[in-house]
């Protein structure tokens, strides 16, 4: 693999529509290692850069199941095995009384798994990232939209890729140092 001093080439756009159209064309042109940045969630964008699989629901489900099952078993073990208290001859395994805590544990673990799963899958926290080296990128959290082709893309070529991005009529183009 060739090593290049650049991380990628970044193009800046004015609107979400322009960015989605540009991202689609880039993906159609055969670039696969690309990413797009927007100041708010744009539904069509992930699809446009060819990103479909999303692990968050599975992580949340696993978290919720762990919470619910362990919550119930915890109560069963504590109330029926480890520390049984005879209350008027009622059964030790009094399952209706255990539902509330089981439910709360399901929600708690599911919610924690959703948030921390999302952060982990996104690779956050990540205080440093090469895209922050582009001064104009500070506008990505305000009103500008960015598309990047990473230099690790097999089709990447400093001159050709730049020319291709210029053909998408961006507002500006910058090289991202790695």
């Amino acid at each position, binding site marked *: 693999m060739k090593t290049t001093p650049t991380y990628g080439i970044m193009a800046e756009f004015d609107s979400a*529509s322009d960015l989605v159209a540009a991202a689609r064309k880039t993906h159609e042109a055969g670039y696969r290692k690309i990413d797009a940045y927007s*100041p*708010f969630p744009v539904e069509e*964008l992930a699809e446009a850069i060819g*990103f479909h699989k999303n692990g*968050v629901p599975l992580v949340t489900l696993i978290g919720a199941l762990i919470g619910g099952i362990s919550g119930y078993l915890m109560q069963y073990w504590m109330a029926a095995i480890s520390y049984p208290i005879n209350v008027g001859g009622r059964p030790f395994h009094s399952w209706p009384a255990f539902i509330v805590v089981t439910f709360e544990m399901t929600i708690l673990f599911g919610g924690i798994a*959703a948030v921390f799963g999302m952060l982990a899958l996104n690779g956050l926290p990540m205080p440093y990232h090469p895209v922050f080296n582009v001064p104009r990128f500070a506008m990505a959290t305000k*009103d500008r939209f960015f598309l990047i082709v990473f230099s690790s893309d097999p089709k990447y070529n400093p001159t050709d890729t730049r020319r291709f991005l210029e053909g998408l009529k961006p507002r500006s183009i910058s090289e991202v140092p790695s």
Partner: protein
Amino acid sequence: MADRVDDVEVANRRAPVIEPGYTFGTVTDKISAIVLKRPTSTGWFIGFGIAFMLTMMMLFAIGYLVVKGTGIWGINIPIGWGFAIVNFVWWIGIGHAGTLISAILLLLRQSWRNSINRFAEAMTLFAVAAAGIFPLIHTGRPWLAYWLFPYPNTMNYWPQFRSPLLWDVFAVSTYFTISLLFWFVGLIPDLATLRDRSENRWAQMIYGMLAMGWRGSARHWHRYETMYLLLAGLATPLVLSVHTVVSFDFAIAIVPGWHTTIFPPYFVAGAIYSGFAMVLMLAIPIRKIYGLEDFITDRHLQNSAKVMLATGWIVAYGYGMEAFMGWYSGNRYDSFLLWNRLHGPYQFFYYLLLICNIGSPQLLWIRKLRTNSFGLFMVSFVILVGMWLERFVIVVMSLHRDFLNSSWGMYYPTRWDWMTYIGTIGMFLAAMFLFVRILPMISIFEMRTLLPEAEVKAE
């Protein structure tokens, strides 16, 4: 035909969710400038100062309580619950509106929520924090409160999972945790905006650390949106369960007036009722002081008023059913409770409760009042008082005269009860003052999605 067109036009003439003319840039600047550019006003310092002093008063009252014990309060036998539980239920109910706005309205695609969800969530957090203080200090020995959690210990025991009081521990701590996560995760993209907009090195570093390197990648947004919807889906049953579990504290007991099946739905409706009243009491001054009328429009006030009117009627149905069952059940203790409410020593509070909670919201039928800030503010205040009285009526009036008249008694709160209660209001307000000063009180990125230019046009 012409009539129908007119009707459609009238229907469309509702106030907009966001005033026209804004762009991504101006929305961002306007909300972030409140935190980054606007100088801290004298009014803020005065308001925060008063709230802070009230917080200190609360700490003083709690400190004295720890030294002396719960004997300094007005509680006694038979009224063992008193102000601590009244205030706990009141505060936790107020918290419910935040989760309702952020989670349930998100799932129902009510986009008007986008401009009020952030500070409503903050309100939830602070209200639940204020609520949590009361059961903690009501245990009498708060330094042993960790005994409530199941942890391996040398005493060789485990908590009693068949007790609704333990369910409450799990429900409230889960609610606080999930609300905190929901609020913080919603803040991440906005913290990144503040990181990029601020010129102060310290602010950049602090906001930057909290934003965790958020850069708005399409992959990140995709996972983020999935997570946000899932979290809303989890928080929706949670918020309904929390006040249900609180109502179990009462309904599982056999005390007359508590042992009823209507408690869970009636508590949840009451919680949302008081929560929206608090949202309005905060939103109306905030939008005026910070000039946010373009984002928190009359539409938001109207919609909140309508939610209050609807939940107010559910609460009224609850009162009606309680009274009806007192008569219809034929149970002498239940019918005595009804008599005691209408004619007993606390009758004044029961009638005041009916006026505040059933009478005052009927004013919201008037369209003029629903768009009048001052009128709404006053109605909300009256409703908050009414909801506090409701909990007073439930807790104190059921306990003070139950089955045996040899064990009847009266409850009079002491100055320490009042100091703790008013102190938690101060703590709540102090936290709100800090929140509006250092964090964006309106979700910037969700406001951007409301703008017409956010729509992706097909080629």
